[in-house]
């Protein structure tokens, strides 16, 4: 059936063997692909008894029906696993080229189980799977390794871990195509725990499309819409995602100094405008992407992709650092070491606050740009204080007696948007199934950018409806799998029509979003099975109790409790956040209980 290769590649590292078998197509149509399919497979394979860093955990790489089709931004893929950072279900997705190549290799899913006795890397050329000794590659950083294994953007693509993954840092990323990352929640540590250094893919089969004429029309219309949206045609290509820095700062929703403030006096110095004017070499893009938000930046020391807004914020405003070259350099270092920039920056900010308050004996201080790179190095190699920082802010702050200073939800460090200036964003973080994350239905579109239309960012009543809808939409988009930036110019109804054109199965917009709702509920069930409860759907006390004393968000704290009650009702869950039987029946999930 067009859209799916209908094949799973199942690799057992214990024995260095593999098998292939058909994908359950009923499951595929219900969960689409990507994140949805990954969550459904993980449900069967990894239960509460499994330690995330044990051989019993799995890595499930998935693409989706749109991956590799040539539809705008159809370059993405996912990895699903149990997170070593949070203990929740974890999906991370990435762009670049690897996902497209993986699709062309003829698989929808690749499951990696077990643990190799010694370091290995895997090479996939459609039906030919080869296991290679990686003993000499172990310890190698990402940029060198990617080149050594023959990265060639349209023909051969490399996915790997760096030293952080090898050292089992719980905030380690899996990197692909040199500077793209499956970053959040520590999937790099799971790969490291399996002694798996890299997966290289060469594919040769272009995905089939059921209705080429309709597909061509949707391509044309999408191109028009992306060209007409100032965000996708001007702001992102010209300034990258860092265009948000001044916008968020101006409305008083830019978390600063470990969320002690909501505005940063140095925001202008680390803004998209500054990056473009002084450090931008060119912009670049993932496969089949007309937006081109990727920055290629250069300082005296480095030249490479990035930084993204969240990375710039994490090492910038969150650490009170307005030295943009230092941020560009530490971002490149994170990519080379294979470590999540958001968690790394926010963990350092947490340590800075602990130090300044006298809870930690270290010289880490807000504003010290010179401390960024050495601290990240120490984290990746687990040296000195880095050995403890490598496992994220919650474990670190808990060890020093102040877990409340970890700016995380369910243990995952939150990104830049301060919930006191965006009520919906706070509810989003608190209820996100993988923890404090903006990629699970970001409210910045509705609450800040006016996409599709602006809503009052301080409104509390009714806010849960928007959060639920956007969580479901994001789960659907993550299952297709395409880039969420496309949704900033193109409404989701277009994605449903493209999905129909590619697969030949008629998906109304609501059907596609319902699939997203199914995925969201399944992830919730997974977390409940892991022991998470209503108490975990919360935010750091600072955001609930400490209002900013100045700026546009002055006097506001997150009004989480009333929003959460409304959210549970709107989701069809009980007052403890447990999906009701009626909802599970409606979504076809009863057979899992």
């Amino acid at each position, binding site marked *: 059936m067009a859209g799916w290769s209908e094949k799973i590649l199942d690799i057992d590292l214990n024995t260095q063997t593999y098998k292939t078998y058909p994908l359950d197509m009923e499951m595929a149509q219900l969960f689409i692909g990507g994140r949805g399919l990954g969550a459904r497979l993980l449900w069967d394979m990894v239960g509460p008894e499994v330690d995330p860093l044990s051989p019993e955990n799995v890595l499930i790489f998935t693409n989706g029906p749109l991956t590799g089709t040539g539809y705008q931004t159809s370059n993405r893929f996912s990895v699903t696993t149990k997170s070593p950072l949070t203990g929740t279900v974890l999906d991370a997705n990435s762009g670049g080229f690897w996902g497209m190549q993986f699709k062309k290799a003829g698989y929808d899913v690749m499951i990696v189980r077990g643990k190799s006795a010694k370091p290995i890397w895997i090479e996939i050329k459609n039906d030919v799977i080869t296991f290679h000794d990686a003993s000499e590659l172990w310890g190698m950083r990402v940029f060198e390794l990617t080149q050594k294994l023959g990265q060639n953007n349209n023909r051969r693509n490399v996915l790997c871990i760096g030293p952080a993954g090898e050292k089992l840092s719980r905030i380690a990323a899996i990197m692909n195509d040199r500077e793209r990352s499956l970053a959040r929640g520590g999937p790099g540590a799971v790969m490291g725990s399996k002694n798996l250094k890299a997966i290289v893919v060469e594919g040769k089969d272009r995905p089939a499309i059921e209705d080429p*004429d*309709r597909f*061509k*029309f949707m391509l*044309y*219309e999408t191109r*028009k*819409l992306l060209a*007409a949206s100032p965000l996708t045609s001007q702001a992102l290509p010209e300034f990258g995602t860092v265009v948000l820095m001044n916008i968020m700062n101006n409305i008083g929703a830019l978390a600063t100094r470990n969320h002690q403030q909501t505005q940063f006096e140095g925001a202008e110095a680390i803004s998209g405008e500054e990056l473009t004017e002084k450090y931008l070499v060119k912009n670049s893009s993932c496969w089949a992407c007309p937006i081109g938000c990727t920055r290629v930046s250069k300082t005296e020391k480095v030249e490479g992709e990035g930084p993204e807004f969240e990375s710039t914020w994490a090492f910038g405003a969150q650490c009170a650092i307005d030295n943009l070259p230092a941020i560009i350099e530490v971002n490149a270092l994170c990519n080379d070491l294979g470590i999540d920039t958001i968690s790394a920056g926010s963990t350092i900010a947490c340590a800075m606050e602990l130090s300044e308050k006298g809870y930690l004996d270290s010289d880490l201080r807000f504003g010290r740009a010179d401390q960024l790179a050495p601290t990240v190095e120490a984290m990746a190699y687990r040296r000195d204080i880095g050995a403890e920082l490598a496992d994220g802010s919650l474990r670190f702050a808990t060890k020093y007696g102040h877990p409340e200073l970890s700016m995380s939800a369910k243990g995952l460090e939150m990104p830049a948007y301060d919930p006191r200036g965006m009520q919906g964003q706070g509810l989003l973080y608190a209820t996100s199934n993988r923890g404090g994350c903006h990629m699970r239905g970001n409210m910045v579109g*509705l609450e800040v950018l006016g996409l*599709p*239309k*602006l*809503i*009052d960012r*301080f*409104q*509390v*009543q*009714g806010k*849960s*409806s*928007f959060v*639920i*809808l956007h969580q*479901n*939409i994001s789960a659907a988009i993550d299952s297709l799998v395409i880039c969420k930036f496309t949704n900033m110019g193109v*409404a*989701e*109804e277009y994605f449903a*029509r493209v999905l129909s054109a590619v697969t030949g199965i008629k998906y*109304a*917009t*609501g*059907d596609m*979003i319902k699939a997203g709702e199914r995925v969201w509920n399944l992830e919730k069930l997974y977390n409940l099975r892991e022991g998470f409860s209503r108490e975990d759907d919360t935010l750091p006390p600072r955001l609930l109790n400490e209002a900013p004393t100045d700026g546009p968000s002055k006097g506001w704290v997150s009004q989480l409790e009333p929003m959460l009650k*409304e*959210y549970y*009702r*709107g*989701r*069809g869950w009980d007052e403890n956040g447990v999906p009701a039987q009626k909802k599970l029946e409606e979504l076809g999930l009863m057979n899992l209980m």
Partner: protein
Amino acid sequence: MIDERIFEQFRDIGRDLYVAQLISSHGGNLSMRLGDRVVIKRRGAMLGNLKPHDLVETRLDKNDSGVALASTELLAHRTIYKMTPALSIVHCHPRLAVAFSLSRDEFVPIDNEASYLLKKVPVVTEEFPSGTPEMANKVATVLQNYKIILLRGHGSFAIGQTLDEAFFWTTTLEEACQIALYAKLIDEPFIEYRKMSESYSKF
């Protein structure tokens, strides 16, 4: 108690619908989904002159005392919310669009803006076009694939994430109908300027 911020959205869009002559003094209605609840205009209230007590909050899935006060079209609104991802609905009686609905099964705009935004607007026929389950189901079913539709001889139903968005689709449709009418009156050969425009009717 309905938040003042929500009332203001109803008041402003309701006034604009009246000013734009998309409703009569007491016609049309607006609603918004709040999780498992619906806020809708009270039956008989004037959209162009809404007061806070003109909004009724009721349950999405079943009746409560709110239904005694709610708009006649509550059933249609509930059904649309259950069957589509809509969070807001604008229902009104755009005059030219209704006029076009009397002779067509779909309206395919010829102007650039509506071609770009709407592609096409289906026309639905229902013998009893107000307050019946048949009408509600028919309208909601078509809205699964479109953001605005016309009920023949009656009016439009537009859905969106916000009232603002649904209002936008509504005014876009009426503007497109005006342009189509003027083009018809000018009665000169149409020069196609859009690529792949033949695909619009298949959208």
